[in-house]
């Protein structure tokens, strides 16, 4: 067994949330620069120019890229040879989130009961934590602060096998096109296909964090990613929804086996400020 202190978990989580909220990855910055070249609308170009400038300011000054610094979502792979000492694993993660948001001048957006009081927890916790037990003696973290302008545009379709890939392409593209300017286009669209309703949505969320330029390893699904991307970009929605040919930067599909009677399709939309960071202990 390898021992890892709860405090190390806390510090790593804090470091990753600060990084994710201040710095847009190079792959996405490059894609935005390409989009600026591809965009034909003058207003669209101006919007993309502001986005690129914004991301440079945020990174240089270490301030939040977007004021909506999101709910704190983590995908954790916990090696089965790891023994956490000196504290509770989940508490350590939440403590790391709290310190990042309090010390890093990030907005606290979590409210406790979602219906009646909606009182701010003032810590941006509880975090949304997905933990997978894997072989090995390491813990790896993928953190993604998720803003709600785009999260609110999510959709779940319990499609039929007979709907086929065309049904999926139409459902996903229509979901994103109908959202128009609301999710801050140009967006990155995560799609989860198969498993159960809940797992499809988790896959969709995780898919939004894929490196730009990488495609599904299965050629048939990679083709579907391209078809959805093209269909969304033919809509004319454009940057900020003000018209143009760049509405979506990437469509990322993940899939899992499913039941003989169904074909769940989950769509999770991420704004152009697709923020995530990875680290290992």
């Amino acid at each position, binding site marked *: 067994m390898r021992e890892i202190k709860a405090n190390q978990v806390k510090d790593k989580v804090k470091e990753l949330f600060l990084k994710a909220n201040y710095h847009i990855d190079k792959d996405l910055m490059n894609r935005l620069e390409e989009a600026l070249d591809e965009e*034909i*609308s*003058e*207003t669209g170009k*101006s*919007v993309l120019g*502001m*986005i690129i*400038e*914004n*991301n440079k*300011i*945020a990174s240089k*000054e270490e*301030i*939040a*890229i*977007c*004021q*909506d*610094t999101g709910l704190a979502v983590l995908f954790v792979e916990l090696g089965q040879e790891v023994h956490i000492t000196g504290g509770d694993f989940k508490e350590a993660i939440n403590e790391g989130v709290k310190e990042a948001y309090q010390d890093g*001048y*990030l*907005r*606290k*957006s979590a409210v406790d009961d979602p219906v009646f009081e*909606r009182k*701010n927890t*003032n810590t941006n916790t509880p975090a949304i934590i997905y933990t997978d037990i894997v072989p090995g003696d390491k813990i790896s973290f993928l953190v993604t602060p998720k803003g709600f*302008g785009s999260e*609110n545009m999510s959709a779940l379709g319990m499609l039929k096998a007979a709907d086929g890939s065309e049904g999926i392409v139409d459902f996903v593209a229509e979901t994103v096109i109908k959202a*128009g*300017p*609301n999710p*801050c286009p140009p967006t990155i669209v995560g799609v989860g296909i198969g498993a159960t309703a809940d797992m499809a949505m988790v896959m969709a969320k995780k898919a939004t964090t894929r490196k730009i330029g990488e*495609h599904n390893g299965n*050629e048939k699904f*990679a*083709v579907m*990613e*391209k*078809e959805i991307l*093209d*269909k969304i970009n*033919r*809509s*004319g*929605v*454009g940057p*900020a*929804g*003000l*018209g*143009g*040919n760049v509405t979506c930067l990437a469509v990322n599909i993940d899939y899992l086996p499913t039941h003989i009677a169904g074909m769940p399709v989950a769509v999770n939309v991420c*704004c*152009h*400020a697709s923020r995530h960071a990875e680290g290992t202990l």
Partner: protein
Amino acid sequence: MANIKKITTPLNDKTVVDLKAGDTVNITGYIYTGRDAAHKRLIELIDKGEELPIELKDQIIYYVGPAPAKPGYACGSAGPTTSYRMDPYTPVLLDRGLKGMIGKGLRSREVIDSMKKNKAVYFAAVGGAAALIARSIKKSEVVAYEDLGAEAIHRYYVEDFPAIVVIDSKGNDLYKTEPPKYAKQESDSLRGVPSK
């Protein structure tokens, strides 16, 4: 980009009527912030016939919940939030004299009708350009509902705040008129062609 129109607050009928959907503007002067929770409280006061904590006449409300300010900054990152959540409350505020709103995203038919009736304007700021926009915010103070934190009503002094007129006082709506100009037919598609 077309010429930038410089406007100052408080707004008036003439300024508002001269603004056309598609105009790029820089706004200078005082503006108020407000989002879901603050709107709900304002409407509750109006329903009870009580006085509001701010005078709405000729003012602009910016739909924003800013990030906390780092030391040395007047304001933290402060981009627009999605406007449709304020739609149910907006016509009542426009009837009370509110002249402008800054946000992002679609508005309801009821809001647009009320904007035409009351001669009001809706500006879009670029969602996610929060660090850039914050540079135009020179002063920030909480004027009501401090307990709401980021959702409290702030008064900002802004200089050359960058925005685009998306819905003008005639009801012209860029979100409706612009995308069709760039939309392409299905036949242009590369359906079935493998990704690069």
